[in-house]
C-alpha cells in the first residue's frame, strides 16, 4: 500500500496546531481525520480504523490517550507531535511504544517520512502478531496430535495385551492336555513370543508418553558408577546368552537426573550394542566427567543396524528384521529420555560407539517442563 491511501487521525486540543497538521497531511494526499479529545479519538478509530494516529503532546489528557493507544498498537501506529523545545517529553512515549515523534512546526518531508515509518512499524507488528498466532496454533496442533497419538497407542497397547492374554490362556490350556513332547516343546515358544510382543508394546507406549510429555522426571542425584554397575547387571542375561562380556569403568561424579530413566536409557543402548556384537565379543560401559557434563558411553560391537540415520525410515518401513526393529526402538527410547534431560545422544558409525552427555545439574527448568510437545509452548515470548 502506498502512503497515499493511508488514513491518519490527528488528535489535539489546540485547534490551530491541529489544523496545521491536517492541512499538511492533506497536501501530501493522506486521508485525514481529527479529534479534539480522547473519547472523540477512540470513537473515530473504532469507526474508521485509521492506520496512524498523531497525538499532540501539548494536549491535557495525552497520557490517557497514549495508554489507550498502546493497547491497540497492532491496529494503529502512534506518532507524537511535540514543540521543538520540548522534544525530550516525547522520549517516554516512544519508549512505551509510539512509532516515532515529529517536532513542531512539522515540515512536509519529515511528515511523510514519519507517517511512512509509522506505517511500516504497524505492518511489522501485524506480521509478527500473525506469525506468533500461527506458531501458537502449530504448537497447539502438535501437542494435540502427540496426545492423540499417545491415546491411540494406549488403546492399541491395551487391545494387543488383551489378545495376548487370550493367546497365553489358550497356550497354557493346551500345554495341560496330553501332548507329544515335540508339540509341547513348540508350544513353549509361544510364551517367549508373547513376552517379546509385550516388550515392544510397552516400548511404543513409553515413546508415546515421552513425546506427549506425560512421563514426568523425578530428579535425584545419581552416582555415575552405581548407574553403570546397575546397567551392567541388567545386561548380564542377554550378554550371557550371546557370550558377550560387559566391562565397566566410571569416574567419581554425580549427576542430577531421573535415575531409573537414565538407567533405562543406558540399558537400551547397552542391549542394542550387545545384540550388535559377535559372539565372544565384549562391550564396555563408561562414565566420565568432561567439561562439567557427565558422559556415558557404550563401546564395542558392530552397530547392528542401529545407525542413527537409518532409524526414522526404519521405523516407518514394514517387513524389517526383528533385531533391527528392536535396536531402533531401543535407540528412540534412549534418545527421548536423554533429550528430556537436556542431553544429546551421539551414535558413531564404524567404531560403534553410543554415547550421551548430561548436564550435571539436571535439565534446565524449561527442558524439564517440556519434551518435544512442550518446547514450542515454552518459547511463547520472543
Amino acid at each position, binding site marked *: 500500500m502506498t502512503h497515499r491511501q493511508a488514513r491518519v487521525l490527528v488528535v489535539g486540543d489546540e485547534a490551530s496546531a491541529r489544523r496545521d497538521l491536517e492541512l499538511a497531511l492533506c497536501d501530501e494526499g493522506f486521508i485525514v481525520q481529527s479529534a479534539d479529545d480522547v473519547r472523540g479519538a477512540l470513537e473515530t478509530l473504532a469507526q474508521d480504523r485509521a492506520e496512524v494516529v498523531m497525538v499532540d503532546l501539548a494536549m491535557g489528557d495525552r497520557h490517557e490517550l497514549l495508554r489507550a493507544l498502546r493497547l491497540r498498537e497492532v491496529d494503529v501506529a502512534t506518532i507524537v507531535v511535540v514543540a521543538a523545545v520540548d522534544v525530550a517529553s516525547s522520549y517516554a512515549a516512544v519508549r512505551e511504544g509510539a512509532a516515532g515523534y515529529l517536532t513542531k512546526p512539522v515540515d512536509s518531508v519529515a511528515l511523510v517520512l514519519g507517517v511512512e515509518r509509522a506505517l511500516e512499524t504497524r505492518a511489522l507488528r501485524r506480521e509478527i502478531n500473525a506469525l506468533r498466532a500461527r506458531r501458537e496454533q502449530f504448537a497447539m496442533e502438535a501437542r494435540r496430535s502427540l496426545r492423540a497419538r499417545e491415546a491411540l497407542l494406549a488403546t492399541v497397547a491395551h487391545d494387543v495385551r*488383551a489378545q495376548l492374554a487370550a493367546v*497365553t*490362556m489358550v497356550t497354557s490350556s493346551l500345554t495341560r492336555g496330553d501332548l507329544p513332547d515335540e508339540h509341547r516343546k513348540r508350544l513353549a515358544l509361544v510364551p517367549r513370543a*508373547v513376552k517379546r510382543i509385550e516388550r515392544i508394546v510397552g516400548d511404543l507406549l513409553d515413546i508415546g508418553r515421552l513425546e506427549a510429555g506425560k512421563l514426568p522426571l523425578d530428579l535425584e542425584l545419581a552416582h555415575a558408577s552405581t548407574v553403570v554397575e546397575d546397567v551392567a547387571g541388567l545386561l548380564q542375561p542377554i550378554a550371557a546368552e550371546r557370550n558377550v562380556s560387559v566391562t565397566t569403568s566410571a569416574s567419581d561424579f554425580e549427576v542430577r537426573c531421573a535415575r531409573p530413566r537414565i538407567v533405562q536409557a543406558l540399558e537400551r543402548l547397552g542391549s542394542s550394542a550387545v545384540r550388535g556384537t559377535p559372539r565372544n565379543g565384549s562391550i564396555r560401559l563408561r562414565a566420565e566427567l568432561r567439561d562439567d557434563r557427565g558422559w556415558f558411553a557404550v563401546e564395542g560391537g558392530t552397530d547392528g543396524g542401529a545407525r542413527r540415520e537409518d532409524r526414522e525410515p526404519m521405523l516407518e518401513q514394514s517387513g524389517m528384521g526383528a533385531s533391527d526393529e528392536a535396536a531402533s526402538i531401543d535407540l528412540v527410547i534412549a534418545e527421548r529420555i536423554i533429550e528430556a534431560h537436556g542431553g544429546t545422544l551421539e551414535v558413531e558409525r564404524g567404531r560403534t560407539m553410543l554415547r550421551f552427555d548430561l548436564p550435571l545439574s539436571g535439565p534446565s527448568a524449561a527442558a524439564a517442563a517440556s519434551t518435544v510437545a512442550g518446547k514450542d509452548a515454552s518459547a511463547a515470548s520472543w
Partner: protein
Amino acid sequence: MATMRQVEDERYEGVVDRRPTVFLADDDDLFRTVLKDELIAHGYAVEDVSDGAQALELLAMAADGLAASPDVVVLDVRMPGYSGLGVLNVMRRFAKRPPTLLLTAVPDTSIDVLARTMGAFGVLHKPVELDDILDAIQDAVLSKARRPTRA
C-alpha cells in the same frame, strides 16, 4: 497330570463343601471361554457374562439374596457397560460381597492401588498365566471360607 490342580485339593477339605462358584465377567470371548473351560476342568462352577452392566445386575441380585452368591468374582477392567472398577465400586455398597479379582490389560499400577482401596482381593495383569489365575482364585475362595461371614 502332575501339574493339574483340582478343587478337591486337600486345602479345600472341610472348608468348602461343594463346588466353588466363580463369577467371570470379561468381554473378550476367546479369553473368557478358555478360562471358563479351564475353571470347569479344575472343578469350579462358572457363571460368565461379557459386559459390566450384566455383571452388575447379576451380582446385585445375588447380594439381595435373589440368586446364589458366587464364591469368587473375576472382573475385567475394560468392559462395555460398566468397567470392572465401576462394578467393584457399586459392590462396595453390598452387604455381602464375595472376594473380587480384577483382570486388566492396562499396565498402569495405579489400577492396582485404586482396586485395592476399593476392596479388591487382587489384581492380575494381562497377559497372565493360567496358573497365576488359578492360584489367585484358589486363594480368594480360601480367604472367603476362613473369614467369618457378615450377617
